[in-house]
C-alpha cells in the first residue's frame, strides 16, 4: 500500500492535470449533438433528396439545412449513412 507523503501527493496531483476546457465541453455536449443526429436521420428517412445529398456531401448539406458546424455531429452523420 502506498504511503502518501507530501511529495508523493504533489506528484500525483500534478499527474492528473485538467483537460482543455473546450474538449470537456464538446464531450459534455454529445447528447445535444446526438439529438441533432436524430432529427437528421428522421428527415433523411422522409426526404429522399435530402438523404442523397447527405450521402454525397454531408458537410455542405448540413450547413445548407441550417446546422452549425459540429465535427462530432458530422462524424456521427457520416458514420450513420456510410453503409
Amino acid at each position, binding site marked *: 500500500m502506498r504511503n502518501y507523503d507530501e511529495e508523493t501527493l504533489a506528484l500525483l*496531483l500534478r499527474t492528473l*492535470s485538467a483537460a482543455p476546457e473546450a474538449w470537456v465541453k464538446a*464531450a459534455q455536449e454529445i*447528447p445535444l449533438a446526438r439529438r441533432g443526429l436524430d432529427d437528421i436521420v428522421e428527415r433523411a428517412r422522409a426526404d429522399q433528396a435530402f438523404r442523397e445529398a447527405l450521402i454525397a456531401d454531408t458537410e455542405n448539406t448540413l450547413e445548407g439545412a441550417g446546422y452549425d458546424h459540429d465535427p462530432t455531429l458530422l462524424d456521427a452523420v457520416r458514420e450513420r449513412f456510410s453503409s
Partner: protein
Amino acid sequence: MEAARDDGEAAARGSTALSAEQTDAQLVGRCRGGDESAWSALVERFSRYVYAIALQAYRLPEHDAEDVFQEVFARVYERLGDLRDDDAVRPWIGQLTRRLCIDRLRSGGREQPADEETFAGMPAEDVIAEIEMAFDVHEALAGLSENCQEILDRFFARDESYRAIGDALELPAGTIASRISRCLVKLRTELEGRNPVPAESGG
C-alpha cells in the same frame, strides 16, 4: 471563514459537486436514464483520466489526443447501455482509451502497418499505474472542502502561483502555502481512511 467564490466559479463547480456526491454506478445509472447533468458530471469525472492516458501514457500529439478524447466519450455515450457492471465504468473507459490510442498510433502516418508486437510494451505500465493512483488521489480530493479542492487543484494541477490563487479565491497570497500544507494533510488523512496503510514492520 473561507472566502466566498464568485457566481461563475460556483456555477462551474455545479457538475463537480454532483460528480463528487455520486458513485460511478449511480452516475452511470442516471446517464442511462437520459440525465444530461449526470452525463456532464461523468465527462468531468473521467476527463483528466482519459487526457492523462492519451498524453502521458501514449504520448499522442495534442491533435491526436483530442480526437481520441472525443471518440472515447462518444463511444461511452453510445455504449453505456452495454456496460454489464456499472461499477466497472472506470476500467472500461481506461481500456477503451488505451485501445483507441493504439489505433491512432497504428494509423498515424506509418508507411507499413505496425504489428501487435510494436505496441506490446506500450505504454510503460508504471505510467499507467501512476495515472491510476493519481485518479484515486483525485477522487479523494473530492471528499475535502471545496476550498481545499480548489487550492490544491489550482496549485498542483493547474500550476497557478500563490498570487493567482490568492486573487482568484480572495485570500492573502501569504497564506496560500500554509493552506496548501494543511489541505495536503487532510488529503492524506482522506486517502488513508480509504486505503489504510499497514503498520511498518520493524527492522
